């Protein structure tokens, strides 16, 4: 057992750090550091810079433009992205639909979609949840009916981050009615410019406008846009959700926010002992979670696919993110209104998205404890 980074790994960290310091546009760094919202162009610029360097898709196989990094290198890269105040790229194309296309798609689909995801020329969004189907995703009602070489899609998808910027959406839709609700679902890609697609923004409690409702009304999409077999959508959805959960712990970001919190405590001369104890408690849990992530990373290095253990990272990581935003609010006391309160409100989403924390506990109970 040896937890030290190798000289090669340390050199890699230096290389990433130097690259970010040199190439990250200063205006983007300032926004990330200040916690200000980014616009599409910010994401696109940074995406292009990483794409040109060949560092945009660490989770892809090398033949499609992946980096060929070890799990430890990916981890180092993630850390440096946070420490260098670089934005985390939107995951919908790079780490959601692309792995699905690579795993379940055909060669034409790989050739058509992957290069433009790599360069950032095309932005994606995720059409999963519906007004009546949240945690019970398999109850979804959106239909895709066959009409010659096309599917005609009807339904409403909701809570869609970045739909207002997206060129493409991946949709889970029912292609047949089966006795079991998980059957008969397919995974279909739709161009957002197709007639019948409308995007309606949803304002969130923090005042933000990052999520949307997307209506699909007689949207005609070629059958060739289906990834995987007809009715295979549920398996694909599960594959994607497990991919989505790794990395949601957001540990490097938490470390930075915790440091900012300590600075805030010093700056505001907060000497409330109980508050300091609550912060220390969160710091300890963060250390414990960071080491837990390293253990999963080591398992991954030994060839294990990310499994249900990633649910721990999702639950605890989001709890810690929320706790830090809550402590920052409390630290600033009556002056928290303008900046920290919206962040605190916004972070309530973290325990809801990507499979609510209650659903994650179901997964732990069923898949790990075999209850």
């Amino acid at each position, binding site marked *: *057992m*040896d*937890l*030290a*980074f*190798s000289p090669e*790994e340390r050199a890699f960290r230096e290389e990433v750090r130097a690259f970010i310091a040199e190439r990250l546009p200063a205006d983007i760094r300032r926004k990330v550091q200040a916690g200000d919202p980014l616009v599409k162009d910010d994401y696109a610029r940074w995406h292009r810079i990483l794409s040109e360097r060949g560092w945009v898709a660490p989770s892809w196989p090398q033949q499609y433009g992946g980096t060929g990094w070890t799990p*430890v290198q990916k981890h180092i890269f993630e850390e440096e992205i946070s420490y260098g105040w670089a934005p985390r790229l939107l995951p919908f194309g790079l780490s959601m639909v692309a792995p699905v296309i690579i795993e379940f798609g055909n060669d034409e689909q790989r050739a058509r979609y992957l290069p433009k995801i790599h360069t950032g020329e095309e932005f994606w969004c995720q059409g999963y949840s519906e007004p009546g189907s949240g945690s019970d995703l398999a109850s979804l009602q959106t239909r895709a009916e066959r009409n010659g070489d096309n599917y005609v899609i009807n339904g409403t998808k909701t809570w869609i981050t970045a739909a207002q910027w997206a060129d493409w959406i991946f949709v889970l839709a029912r292609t047949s009615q089966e006795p079991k609700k998980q059957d008969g679902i397919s995974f279909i890609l739709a161009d957002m410019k197709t007639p019948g697609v409308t995007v309606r923004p949803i304002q969130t409690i923090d005042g933000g406008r990052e999520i949307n409702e997307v209506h699909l009304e007689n949207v005609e999409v070629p059958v060739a846009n289906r990834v995987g077999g007809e009715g295979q959508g549920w398996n694909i959805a599960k594959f994607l959700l497990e991919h989505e959960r790794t990395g949601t712990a957001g540990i490097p970001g938490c*470390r930075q926010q915790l*440091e900012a919190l300590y600075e805030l405590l010093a700056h505001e001369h907060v000497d409330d002992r109980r508050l*300091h*104890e609550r912060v*220390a*408690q969160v*710091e*300890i*849990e963060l*250390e*414990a*979670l960071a*080491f*837990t992530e*390293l*253990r999963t*990373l*080591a*398992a991954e*290095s*030994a060839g294990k696919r990310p499994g249900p*253990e990633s649910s*721990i990272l999702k*639950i*605890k990581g989001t709890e810690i993110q929320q706790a830090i935003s809550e402590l920052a609010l409390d630290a600033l006391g009556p002056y928290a209104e303008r900046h920290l309160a919206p962040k605190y409100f916004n972070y309530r989403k973290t325990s809801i998205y990507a499979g609510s924390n*209650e659903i*994650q*506990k*179901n997964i*732990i*109970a*069923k898949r*790990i*404890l*075999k*209850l």
Partner: protein
Amino acid sequence: MDFTLSPEQLLIKDSVARFAAGDHAGGEHWPTFAELGWLAIGAPEDLGGFGGPLETLLLMEQFGRGRVVSPYVAQVVFAGTILRAAERTELLQRLVEGEERFAVAYEEPHARYDASRVATAAVRDGDVYVITGTKARVLDPSTADTLIVSARTGDEITLFAVPRDAQGVTLAKYDAEDGHDVANVRLESVRAGASAILGPLGGGLALLELGLDHATGALCAEGLGLMSTMLEATVEYTKQRQQFGVPIGSFQALQHRMAEMFIELELARSMAYLAAMTLGEEQDPVARRRGISAAKAQIAKSGRFVGQQAIQLHGGIGMSEEYKVGHYFKRMTHVERLLGDADFHLARFIAARGAKSEAGTPAPVG
């Protein structure tokens, strides 16, 4: 980075696991421990020693799993670390061979885990020191031949090796809930020669703190083992136990509770390993203090939750003295508080965060 255990480490783990799974209640196991080399963990190689904090973790985790009641932490990890740091090779050799056993008498009434609050005084009288004072809650003194006693020599604290049956030493034993041997020790004008001094005169506190940190790390590992068994027993039980015509483990309220126990267990596992790594690598006392206190605070918190929920989910049978889970719960409750509870270690963690390291650079944050 590499998390795999070496073949030697796997060997220890397996042999301790076999012992811990067997019938180990009562009986004298010390000669067996000596023979198997378990008393030599962490000792220098020329004494037949091997391994370090990670090997101690592997052993103590299995002791926890099997709820082995043993003076190992007090007499090998705590005392052994002190003897090693004090460079008392001849005493360490006797410890490793199982020839002599040591208990550490450091805490005093009302000191609340603080090793620096020492009223016991050692006053020089010619060639000898005369020690007088009271030590509280000394762990495993009955089977010890020698007590390592902290006493004030002027403003500083010095450690003395005092035979347990020396004139003026009295043990007031009391029954601990978890089957361990604990006593208050009264020292009344106990005379100790210069060779009784361990380490430098006035250098006792640093030795004690090092020993305490190693012993605390070992307790974290024991807590990890205790929690593992409690969760396993609870999951098994809720699969068997039928109410309302179904296994109670099928109820979501209980499933989520067990998922939470699992998360706490995994966080505790991470911190127990992190503690072992810190002890193995960290030379700077401030960074070591910070790492160990973080670990103990986490293990105490996780252990309390897992223990209380294990009893709750077992229902009435969890309250029964006949059933094993209650015994694990009781030991866990002691492990939580031994050598400092969650509140104590949280405060120590905060203090270490604020302190500059003794090497002159700030304590690392990440």
